[in-house]
């Protein structure tokens, strides 16, 4: 028996002496799934949640945020920014490199979200979106870019985290993450600083 198996057996055997009541039932969590909210209400709640984590929502009254995004991307590129896009119909000026480390120069990364959570502004992105139109996408992209841009469909906002597992699509071997705003820290005297190791800013275009 390898040492690893021995330790596993030892731990499992020790758990046999646990004094915790074996009758503790798994609580029923189905009641936490939210009842239906109106879409306009969910959008409002999401914007509030996103703002509370220092993210910004772009959702003009005419609903045409994708044109705004296209315009902004063109402007960024003209300013010499390095832009990479995983979203259909939005073209950046950088291709996905072979090595993830080479993403270090990316100023703006544009990715698609699967869904977002209204209560806390968290946006779920998983392997499927990260791979998008390029199977060699690197997981580090939304973390290493200087600024993150996320495109979110307005039908894909859920009320609370309890509705997330049904929508997560986390297959075997996959990676997925909730992103709530740009990276931040308050490790020096509790002063909030936006832009710790990850993105300095997060803009969400609602389409």
């Amino acid at each position, binding site marked *: 028996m390898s040492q*690893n*198996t021995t*330790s*596993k057996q*030892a*731990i*499992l055997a*020790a*758990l*046999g*002496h*646990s*004094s*915790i*009541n074996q009758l*503790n039932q*798994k*609580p029923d969590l189905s009641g*936490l799934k939210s009842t239906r909210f109106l879409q306009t209400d969910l959008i409002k709640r999401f914007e509030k*949640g996103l703002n*509370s*984590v220092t993210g910004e929502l772009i959702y003009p009254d005419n609903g045409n945020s994708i044109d705004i995004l296209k315009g902004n991307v063109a402007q960024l590129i003209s300013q010499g920014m390095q832009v990479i896009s995983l979203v259909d119909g939005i073209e950046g000026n950088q291709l996905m490199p072979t090595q*993830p*480390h080479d993403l270090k120069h990316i100023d703006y990364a544009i990715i698609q979200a699967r869904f977002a959570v209204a*209560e806390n502004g*968290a946006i779920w992105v998983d392997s499927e979106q990260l791979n998008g139109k390029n199977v060699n996408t*690197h997981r*580090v992209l939304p*973390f*290493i870019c200087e600024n993150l841009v996320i495109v979110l469909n307005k039908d894909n906002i859920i009320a609370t985290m*309890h509705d*997330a*597992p049904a929508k*997560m699509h*986390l297959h*075997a*071997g*996959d*990676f*997925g*993450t*909730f*992103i*709530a705003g*740009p*990276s*931040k*820290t*308050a*490790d*020096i*005297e*509790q*002063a909030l*600083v936006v*832009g*710790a*190791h*990850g*993105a300095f800013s997060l803009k969400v275009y609602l389409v």
Partner: protein
Amino acid sequence: MYQSKSHADNATIFCRDENRVDWHSKALWNLREKRDRAAASVPEWEQLRQLGSEIKLHTLSHLGDYLCQFEQKCIENGIQVHWAKDASEHNQIALNILTTHSVKKLVKSKSMLTEECHLNPFLEKHGIEVIDTDLGERIIQLNNQPPSHIVVPAIHMKKEEVGELFHQKLNTPKGESDPTRLTRAARKHLRDQFLSADAAMTGVNMAIADLGAVVVCTNEGNADMGANLPKLQIHSMGIDKIVPDADSAMVLLRMLARNAIGQPITTYSSFYRGSKVDGEMHIIIVDNGRTDIMQDNILAESLKCIRCGGCLNTCPVYRRSGGFSYNYTIPGPIGIAVGAQHDDSNTIPWACTLCGSCSYVCPTKVPLDKIIAHHRRLKAEQGKLPFGKKFYMPAVGKLMSSPTLLNCTMSSARLALKVIPHTLIKPLSGAWGHYRELPVAPKSSFDTWYKHHKAANKETK
């Protein structure tokens, strides 16, 4: 770092600088207030706490089954799972994985478990450079200190001190103390480390049994930046991190950051259900005393903890004695709960007023005050009461259980307080009298007062 291991001795050192104690206490209370606002914003908060407690209790009571299910699912996902009975086995496993891959530089994100196992010095001894990447952790690593708090590890340092440290270690301008500029300097310094690391290691906030996935939460993005660059990623977790499924994880995720620092969720809550393409992912499952804790049904509930740090922020003793006074890696109420059995000073169970504020704020309803009181009993039963307590507590017990003895003693004490100068009897009050004045003696005992008034009452009726 301190000479004595006794909590009271170390708290005395911490309390010498009164302004600093006030500043420290206020910084933590600020977190408590933010927590209160965040909790109040969720109408079903108390229901979540109850469910959180039930989920953890249920998981702990079926932990063997869940651990096996977790391992099986991980293997299906291509993740390599290792089991470690104790800290030294954990460290050896980590070293073996790292040497197999000829790792020279390891980037780590926050993990109280690896602190508990003293992994960094072990790896450094074997020639591996270890870089802590959470800003607070990096600050204390550069300052050669352990964390003084489990969520905000450098809470004990002022920005001027961080500035001076960065000036020496990272070459920032002398006198720079602006948190934004210091954070930018650390970002630049750590980015170089991320890009040149051979492997990454993280702690685990939750391990989801039916998915075979680990959840890692950070605000800075350091865990994801680390884990997603090099080919090799290692995640260390205590056996108590298991939750049955994603639904359960959501209940805890809704509370974790709200209860820790008043944020609705951490910036990044990442689910790793396998390695990156061409990568390798390892998980080390560690016992290190947890199964021992589970043999005592009161102490066992301490394993419901999700390490939010909420109990530290609210604790009147922690706020005024600092994280380095506890003679254990984890300070504060939860540190006493899971660390008292390792405390050879036998003092930390008394670093508590039993006010119960910690239990009140705990998101998984760990009965911390009850556990701490239980630790006092255990220390007494093991004959490990500190010198003074060992001597006088049995006497006090006898005294209190005999009304005659108690009345006699109290009346002599009242007399003594009246007739003997306080300077002469104060030394008898021991540690209690260090920061207190002796009381003014009441005219009579409560017993006498009560009897008198009861009689007077009857007469008027």
